[in-house]
């Protein structure tokens, strides 16, 4: 089955006063219909930039330099970012949920208006029908008293509720893919769990693909079927969720998993080991592997050869590393 979304060698660079920042430097991944994908990495690794690039929401001084973005067979890079084709796709076939529920909604418009905007635009509904659908959507995402609260303003909702509204907006036009950029980072842990369950439930029902972008491994462990790990603008490991968590093969992923406590481990079994060093400066990137300064598994070859290409180490399991690490 052909992928729903196929991203090949995406390169998005930013021309800043300090130099050229290669935020996404050859990112490739794909998403199948109805899948839940995790895009994981620390702050600044380029994951947000990558999905913003897909939606063509990158603004100056950033620019998509290279890459192919195929959605359902269409090459999105052919379209102008504000042209009618791209606008129909954005918000219609591909939608996005942002991180900050507190500021991502327009304070002077009612919730109803903000949802019906999309419905009127993409589904050609008239005002009344759109309103009805909006109320349905609010009910679906679990907003109590939906019929009354639909006319409220964003500031009258709590953070968790606002994020539910964002989810409703993202689902409203029955998109093919939803990108969720750190959807739960700004809310408390209980709400986090509720929102994630809600999202999983809804996308499964509608067979929508979901790409969760996060730095929080716990979030994707439970819900994602496949995971991509990013570092310094590139994908360094990808595979099925159980493979990534069960036997990670890239030093970075291994480091990440070691630095996170696990439920069920007996107290005192092992120390939490953080990864030494700091993320690299994306402006002056060396030609070799970017993780090298922090890597504890490095060999001779790593210091001489360029950043390794992805190679298979198992069924659908790829890493960008020269070393074969066997975890006990």
């Amino acid at each position, binding site marked *: 089955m052909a992928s729903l979304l196929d991203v090949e060698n995406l390169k998005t660079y930013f021309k800043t006063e300090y130099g050229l920042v290669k935020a996404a430097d050859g990112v490739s991944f794909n998403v199948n219909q109805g899948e839940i994908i995790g895009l994981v990495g620390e702050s600044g690794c380029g994951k947000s930039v990558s999905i913003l690039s897909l939606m063509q929401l990158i603004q100056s001084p950033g620019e998509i330099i290279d890459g192919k973005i195929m959605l359902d067979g269409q090459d999105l890079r052919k379209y102008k970012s504000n042209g009618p084709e791209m606008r129909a796709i954005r918000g219609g076939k591909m939608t996005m949920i942002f991180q900050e529920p507190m500021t991502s909604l327009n304070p002077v418009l009612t919730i109803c208006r903000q949802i019906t905007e999309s419905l009127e635009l993409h589904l050609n509904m008239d005002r009344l029908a759109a309103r009805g659908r909006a109320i349905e959507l609010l009910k679906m995402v679990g907003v109590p008293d939906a019929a009354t609260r639909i006319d409220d303003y964003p500031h009258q909702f709590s953070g968790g509720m606002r994020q539910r509204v964002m989810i409703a907006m993202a689902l409203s036009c029955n998109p093919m893919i939803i990108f969720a950029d750190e959807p739960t980072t700004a809310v408390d842990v209980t709400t986090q769990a509720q929102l994630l369950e809600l999202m999983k439930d809804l996308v499964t029902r509608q067979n929508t693909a979901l790409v969760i972008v996060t730095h929080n491994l716990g979030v994707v462990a439970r819900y994602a079927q496949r995971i991509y790990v990013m570092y310094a603008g590139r994908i360094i490991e990808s595979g099925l969720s159980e493979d990534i968590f069960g036997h990670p093969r890239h030093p970075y992923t291994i480091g990440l998993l070691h630095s996170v406590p696990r439920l069920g481990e007996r107290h005192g079994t092992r120390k939490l080991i953080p990864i030494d*060093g*700091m993320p*690299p400066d994306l402006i002056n990137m060396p030609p*070799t592997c970017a993780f090298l*300064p*922090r890597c*504890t598994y490095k060999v001779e070859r790593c210091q001489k050869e360029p950043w390794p290409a992805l190679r298979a180490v198992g069924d659908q399991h790829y890493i960008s590393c020269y070393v074969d690490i066997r975890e006990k």
Partner: protein
Amino acid sequence: MPDKAIVTPPSLDAMGITAAPPRRSEWKRFARVFFGRRLYLIGFIIAVIIILTAIFAPLLAPYDPIQNELRGKLQSPSWEHWLGTDQLGRDILSRIIYGTRISLEIAFAAIFSSAIIGILMGLAAAHFGGWVFTLIMRVTDALMALPGIILVLLIAGLGGRGIPVVIFALGFGGIAGMCRMMCGQALSVKQNDYVLAGRAIGMSNWRIMLTQIFPNAFPPLIVGLTMGIGGVVLGEAGLSFLGIGVPAPNPSWGGMVMDGQRFLLDNPLLSLAPGVAIMLLVFGFNMVGDGIRDAIDPKLRGVL
């Protein structure tokens, strides 16, 4: 398992690989943003020139600014008098040069006094809250209910003539604005945890205000102060123009404009030249204020 200790081999150093991005000096960044924009740079230079002119006025001015020379009155510009003379034969250029002193002295004195009082009031309102806050807010509301010029006019006009009155009037008019600005800033700073921490270790009210709240709330006010200089200069010029500002024979720019209106046909420069001087001064200091504001704005980091 390999050894956990990380040592960067010399070969990596040679390739220029560092583990962390380089830190950029705060002052350098400030200077870069501030002097980066041509406009701010020009404004800064103008402001410096004007301040220097004020300081070195006796050396720069070719003639005595208040010496009447009735025989040579209302001359057009010439080599002896670059801008011509006024209705009492005084050299216009010299009067403008000496005028920088008057304008700057009054401006700095007025801004300084309104700043001190306004800042104290604002700090008090923000810190003590309650009825103090309400009282100060309503009083400043009342003060701001009158158009600034009217208020200044009232005080200067009815309080007698003379430079001290002018300073008092202009300073008084600026208090409300300073107070409000300081209060707003202090309130948002108050939310911060370090203020709570200070209280937790038993700092007295005054100490908290002086050492915690003020230093953090103040920087944005620097912009307001610098812009305020322009406002005060315009205000003083206006007062002098109406005849209730700096008294004759002092060379005040506003007064010169007033004098000149009657003699527009004879020597228009009498009215027009001082206006250009006013504009330059206000522009210079406004640009400095803008520059400072942009340079300390964290959101503009890395963006121009």
